[in-house]
């Protein structure tokens, strides 16, 4: 199985090539440069892997949540590439990608993935390691830090490992009672690995759409 994975939901831009279990990854932090660098990065990655796009069985992309423009870019590129070579697409959650990057071998451990959603809110979800990568325990949500803390207090599981940059953006410095993983950004590496584990989730390119989670983006005009 050969997969190409794209992740552009943050200031980081990364692409990964999964070839029969081996992984090649190119990544860089490049705010506002994604649109110029992404395709050249894919070109260089395929060259290094001595392969071509047509040899890929599917295209995976980080479908959000994250920067609206970033996840739309990943979706647009995934659609264009996949439609062009007549291959399916595998959309992967950026929160799942973060949890996957911070995974621990203990199957009983819960992973709380967080991203800064700005406007005093976080995107977050809870996962646990499973056969197909991750099992979603709590669906992707958008809340304030206070509401997330409230959820954790009432949650039917022990304090999770907290990963992703969202938590640190809002948690007070003195909060030491939590197990924190390094606050890494989503990477195409984990998008590729999760896509390989979720091969059955491939879809038609036209259905490869972003998942924004924040859906209220405009206020209706008041009708006089």
């Amino acid at each position, binding site marked *: 199985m050969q997969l190409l994975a794209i992740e552009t939901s943050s200031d980081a831009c990364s692409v990964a090539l999964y070839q029969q279990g081996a992984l090649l990854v190119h990544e860089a932090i490049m705010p506002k440069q994604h649109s110029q660098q992404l395709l050249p990065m894919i070109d260089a990655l395929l060259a290094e892997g001595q392969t071509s796009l047509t040899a890929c069985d599917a295209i995976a992309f980080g479908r959000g949540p994250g920067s609206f423009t970033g996840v739309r870019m990943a979706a647009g590129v995934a659609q264009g590439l996949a439609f062009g070579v007549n291959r399916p697409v595998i959309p992967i959650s950026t929160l799942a990608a973060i949890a996957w990057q911070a995974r621990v071998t203990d199957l009983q451990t819960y992973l709380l993935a967080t991203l800064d959603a700005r406007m005093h809110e976080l995107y977050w979800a809870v996962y646990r390691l499973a056969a197909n990568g991750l099992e979603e325990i709590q669906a992707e949500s958008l809340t304030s830090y206070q509401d997330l803390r409230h959820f954790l207090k009432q949650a039917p599981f022990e304090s999770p490992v907290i990963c992703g940059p969202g938590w640190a953006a809002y948690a007070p410095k003195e909060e030491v009672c939590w197990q924190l993983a390094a606050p890494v950004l989503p990477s195409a590496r984990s998008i590729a690995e999760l896509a390989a584990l979720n091969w059955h989730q491939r879809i038609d390119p036209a259905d490869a759409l*972003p998942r924004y989670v924040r859906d209220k983006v405009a206020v209706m005009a008041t009708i006089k």
Partner: protein
Amino acid sequence: MLVLGIESSCDETGVALYENGVGLIAHVLFSQVATHAAYGGVVPELASRDHIQKLLPLIGQLLTQSQRTLAEIQGIAYTRGPGLSGALLVGAAFAQSLAFARKLPCVGIHHMEGHLLSPLLEQNQPEFPFLALIVSGGHTLLVKVQALGDYEVLGESLDDAAGEAFDKTAKLMGLAYPGGPLLAKLAEQGDAMRYALPRPLLHRADLMFSFSGLKTAVAQLIDKEDLRCVKVQADIAASFQAAVIDVLVAKTLKAVKQTGLQQVVVSGGVSANVWLRTQLQAGLTQLGAKAFYPRLEFCTDNGAMIAFAGCLRLAAGQVSEFDFSVKPRWSLNELRL
């Protein structure tokens, strides 16, 4: 060369196939007007979200309708700017990636170049050089067109675009969104002489426009008059429309005299305005000049004009490889072939 054109600069997703030597093969358009109506204007984030959902299904429709296949497409063109950055990026990312996947030449097109070349899609077409008046919700431009890629902006609006003035004034009058065409319809029954509204910059020697003051003048008028009276509404609409059109026509005629160019291309959403067409025709005839319009459906944003401009540029050997950055602000003066 069969070229796929993609337009996504504002609130319409348009795709088309153009083949040189053959002409326009097919085009499909989806307008987001209904999405934005509830907000009283285009919401950029919602526009972008809609483009990414509609683009690929529209291309599927385009291929089915034209009985062509993806494998037959030999080049790809997309709108690179000006426009809403998020909206532009959807078309740009998709177009460049599709071109990358199929190893096809790809080119980013200036949206206004698409508009000013659009009458060349018709039977009755001008020859280079010509003058172009582009009037839409986002732009008011007078351009000297020497040849493909050789443009000189002679005049533009210092503030609101002509179509924007129509829409904003319609909103002041309580008309539904987008109000410009409704206001023009209302004006048909009105007395354009009833209210004396200013003709901004009419007597200035240059070819610049300004429409924001006119909107303010209407706002003051609305405060004084009883808008519940249909006659008053129609007369305000007619007086406003006459003021805008007078300036557009006068400046266009001035440009004809200054440049000596006898062919005038008129494009953009406002170019569908009946009063503009009538007045301009009268003025141009006196000067021995002639107007050229795209068909009505191509006056507004569409994929056909992008496929066409793209085909010309690709045929001339221009390609922009791999880079799908967009130009939300981009002057026609910067263009080259």
